[in-house]
């Protein structure tokens, strides 16, 4: 998005004048002249990018779609734990958004500064975008304040979370490389719900895989705030015991309450743990854009939606998809794309004066790499339950019978196919 100096002056003037002459000034600061029906999507992750593509595709290009994303490139969180073991580099997980151009999606790289649900507008630094419907796909933000001594700066510089794939993933790999043999890698898991339920346990496997081959006297210590392993329990414990014997130690009910940066110490209710690498995944909530839209629920964390349309329970014409919603659905990449498609279909129907699909049925398939070649999965079909007004797991879902190389290959193909579905 480039604007020349004259436009910039006009937009700045418009920005200043908003209070005094709302309607005229507001009209002037429109970033893209709106002609027909428009959907603005904020967030170009798995959910947002999928919604953008499918609204264009399924509306036969009749509905204008503007996709706002702050990052230049897409980095896949799924499979990013394999960067820690060295199976992949972050480059292998990075894609650009060029593949979406052919759908006629208008893409703006920028930071949203506010959302006005009354005027139906999304604010950016240099102007605004009016919408008929808004889809918010903000992913998660971290609640650093829940852990004493932790804040965004500390989390960026020393006590990393690496729970959004990118620079932190690479930095955590470097910390691992600098760790002495015989050292401790402590991994702290927040209370559910959080993004990617099996992700932390997969991370323990990937870290252990690296340590086994490079620093075999070292330990992975899992400090889980939950009372038990939240996903694929039998499969993960089997992998720890059989592939990494005496290397992975699991402690339930061990929420980290405080960290000390200088001594790399984590404090739980029961003990102080000194680590060589301290990897604290903080509690999470819906990304900041959800708060700007005023669609976060009473819990201050997640957004309540109607599961037929993903429309907010608070504001009309605002839809929320992906990790940010309150639901008994796993916060996963595949789930975000599945929700995005239900939302895309519903948005088109609603904008064309039709009733949305009444029986949404969606799927989640999630692979976790337990070594460099072996994987395990959990797979479920979820159906809309009228009585509960919620998505409920259908019969037959479940986890792998055992870890296998076959599933390791399937995990690679899953990644390739889902990234293609989202971005091309």
């Amino acid at each position, binding site marked *: 998005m480039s604007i020349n100096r004259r436009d910039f002056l006009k937009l700045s003037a418009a920005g200043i004048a908003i209070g005094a002459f709302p309607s005229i000034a507001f009209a002037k600061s429109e970033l893209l002249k709106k002609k027909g029906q428009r959907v603005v999507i904020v967030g170009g992750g798995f959910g947002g990018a999928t919604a953008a593509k499918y609204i264009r595709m399924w509306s036969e290009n009749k509905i204008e779609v503007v996709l706002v994303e702050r990052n230049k490139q897409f980095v896949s969180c799924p499979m990013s734990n394999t960067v820690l073991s060295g199976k992949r580099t972050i480059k292998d997980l990075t894609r650009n958004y060029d593949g979406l151009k052919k759908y006629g999606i208008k893409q703006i790289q920028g930071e949203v500064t506010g959302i006005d649900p009354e005027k139906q507008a999304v604010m950016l630094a240099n102007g605004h975008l009016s919408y008929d419907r808004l889809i918010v796909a903000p992913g998660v933000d971290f609640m650093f304040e829940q852990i004493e001594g932790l804040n965004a700066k500390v989390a960026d510089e020393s006590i990393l979370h690496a729970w959004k794939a990118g620079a932190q993933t690479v930095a955590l790999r470097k910390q691992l490389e600098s760790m002495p043999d015989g050292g401790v890698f402590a991994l702290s898991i927040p209370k559910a719900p959080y993004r990617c339920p099996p992700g932390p346990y997969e991370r323990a496997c990937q870290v252990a895989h690296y340590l086994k081959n490079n620093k075999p006297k070292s330990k992975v210590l899992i400090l889980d705030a939950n009372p038990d392993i939240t996903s694929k329990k039998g499969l993960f414990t089997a992998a720890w015991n059989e592939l990494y014997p005496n290397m992975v130690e699991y402690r339930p009910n061990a929420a980290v309450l405080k960290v000390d940066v200088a001594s790399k110490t984590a404090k739980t209710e029961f003990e102080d743990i000194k680590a060589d690498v301290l990897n604290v995944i903080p509690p999470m909530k819906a990304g900041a854009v959800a708060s700007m839209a005023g669609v976060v629920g009473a819990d201050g964390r997640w957004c309540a939606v109607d599961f037929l349309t993903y429309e907010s329970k608070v504001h009309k014409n605002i839809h929320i998809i992906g990790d940010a919603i309150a639901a008994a659905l796993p916060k996963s990449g595949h789930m975000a794309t599945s929700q995005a498609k*239900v939302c895309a*279909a519903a948005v088109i129907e609603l904008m064309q004066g039709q009733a949305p699909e009444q029986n949404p*049925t*969606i799927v989640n398939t999630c692979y976790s790499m337990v070594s460099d070649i072996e994987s395990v*999965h959990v797979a479920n079909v979820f159906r809309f339950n009228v009585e509960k007004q919620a998505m409920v797991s*259908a019969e037959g879902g479940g986890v792998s019978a055992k870890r296998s190389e076959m599933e390791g290959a399937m995990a690679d193909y899953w990644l*390739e*196919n889902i990234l293609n579905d989202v971005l091309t």
Partner: protein
Amino acid sequence: MIKKYLFVITCALGLALPAVQAQAEVDKHARNLAASCAACHGTNGHSAGGTPVLAGMDKALFIGSMKDFKSGARPATVMHQHAKGYTDDEFSLLADFFAAQKR
């Protein structure tokens, strides 16, 4: 002038923007059901590799496979779990949708 002609031709061929073929006749419920398969089997069943291409798959083969996954007659790592989540009527809807997709 040439540019203009080219533009008209590309639009006429539907190449400028990828419109989904025969979208008007597509059963939207079937389309929506099928959409979840794309994570592993590609958009509209056009797999990028590793999983079967569902686009253009013979209807009987699709339904037979899903029923065998569901009953356990055909061993699988994942598909038996997905198949159990759908009804036979839904297998039929999905089969119609994928059979209608150009390979």
